[in-house]
């Protein structure tokens, strides 16, 4: 039956969650983190997920990335049930986790060492093609000349730029971003929005972005999912049709502010809905 489902899934969906339940804990401590979630994401979508803390946003990312198995239901990525095949998903967290014994460039090239077809020629290409690729990305995020530095020589914002490069270096079909700009100041954050948008528009990977910043979601996403608190559920699924490339001016337009206000109201409702249960 599963095989039938797999082959029947149209290729216009890169990721799909089918009646997914995720339960954590055992016995009396068990609780439902994600409740009968259905979600279909098309190639090239930029999906932002917002919602109260603990509602299961990171859990959805982990499901799609194959880091977590659903308790019930099915997760499909690129037409196959997750776990069947690795497709080299790019991932970036709030904590940049650059390896201190490598240079920034070596850190950025790490995925090329692991993901095929790059890994097969890594030894040969690391000084030529891959080197240029890393340099190109560094230039795009404004880190030209920092390739030979060590992670401890860079500021938090610079590390997060490098982190973006590492997540994108192997041109992944899927990019998972879990609050990547959460620890940055407002100005750096807005600058990185534009950079990320540019990178996305170039290669059009499918992006899942988890964020607490509603302006960030509205600025970057083509689709915003609002989730309710425990048990997590997608309560609102919104297309964002603002023209691209979006700029800081976009954020002052009434459509933009209306959208962020709507989102804020929805999340406040989602939070209030959980109070009596606690």
């Amino acid at each position, binding site marked *: 039956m599963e095989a039938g489902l797999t082959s029947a899934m149209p290729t216009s969906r890169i990721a799909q969650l089918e009646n997914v339940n995720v339960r954590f804990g055992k016995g009396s401590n068990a609780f439902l983190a994600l409740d009968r979630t259905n979600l279909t994401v098309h190639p090239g979508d930029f999906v932002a997920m917002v919602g109260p803390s603990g509602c299961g946003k990171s859990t959805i990312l*982990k499901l799609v*990335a*194959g*880091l977590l198995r659903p308790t019930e239901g099915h997760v499909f990525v690129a037409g196959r049930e997750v776990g069947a095949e*690795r*497709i*080299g*998903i*790019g*991932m*970036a*967290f709030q*904590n940049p*986790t650059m*390896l*201190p*014994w490598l240079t920034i460039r070596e850190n950025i090239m*790490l*995925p090329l*060492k*692991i*993901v095929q077809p790059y890994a097969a020629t890594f030894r040969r290409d690391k000084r030529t093609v891959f080197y240029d690729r890393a340099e190109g990305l560094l230039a795009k995020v404004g880190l030209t000349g920092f390739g030979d530095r*060590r992670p*401890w*020589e860079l500021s938090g914002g610079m590390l997060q730029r490098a982190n973006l490069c*590492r*997540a994108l270096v*192997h041109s992944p079909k899927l990019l*998972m971003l879990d609050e990547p700009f959460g620890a940055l100041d407002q100005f750096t954050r807005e600058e990185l929005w534009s950079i990320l948008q540019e990178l996305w528009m170039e290669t059009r990977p499918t992006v899942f972005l988890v964020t607490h910043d509603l302006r960030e979601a509205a600025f970057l996403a083509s689709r915003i999912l609002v989730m309710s608190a425990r048990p997590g559920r997608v309560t609102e699924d919104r297309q964002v049709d603002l023209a691209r490339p979006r700029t800081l001016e976009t954020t002052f337009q009434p459509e933009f502010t209306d959208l962020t206000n709507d989102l804020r109201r929805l999340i406040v409702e989602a939070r209030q809905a959980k109070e009596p249960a606690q």
Partner: protein
Amino acid sequence: MTLSQRSLDHVKSASFIVLLFLAWEVSCVLFGISPIVLPPPSTVISTLIVQMPALWPHILQTLLTTMVGFLLGMVIGVALGAIVGVSRTAYNVAYPLLVGFSSIPKVAVVPIFVLWFGSGTLPAILTALTTCIFPIVVNVATGLATTEPEMEDVLKALGANRSQVFWNVSLPRTMPYFFASLKVAVTLAFVGTVLSETVAANRGIGTVMMMATASFDVPLAFAGLLALALLGILLYAVFAVIEQRICGWANRKQEFAMG
């Protein structure tokens, strides 16, 4: 800036040692302490130099015994640490055992080794091994077992298999733990060797010190202590240099964090 800071620290450390020896010398003279109780450092040092030809074979014996015990401890320690660190189950099962094993005073195992293998070099090697192995096992296991969860997620999402995670992340990040443990282990191995030598051997610094105290040759006993301390410092320094060469990044990171 950090370099001059460090050489300044070296100067401070050296002058502290000199001051300590001076205070020792002065109090010996000032309070008229008998050299049978506490010989002044000048006597200790001259004894060490004068007796060097006689002491040398014993120093060599102790050094070799220590190194053999230490190298064996390193090999076995790394193997055990790898097993314990790679599997969570092994970690949970083996840890209490390791703690129990490490809390046994090593002086208590010497008679058992002697019972099994007779007196001499072999029990000394085994005592050195058992004394130094614990920090190596614990540090290697800790280094391997504690990869940042986010880093692990990034690699797994990329599709990395266990061996790729091991070579790219677990192994390099274990290196500083490993070398830190070697510095400690090599001095501990010394303690083990000398311990065994004082109980059951006819060669080695431990034996010399036993015989010296038995015949009230206190300056010679102190000369033995001094020789031990110097050897300990020497071996520690050797491993500190190797550590700095291989995983200097770990130190520089710290320096940066401290400003």
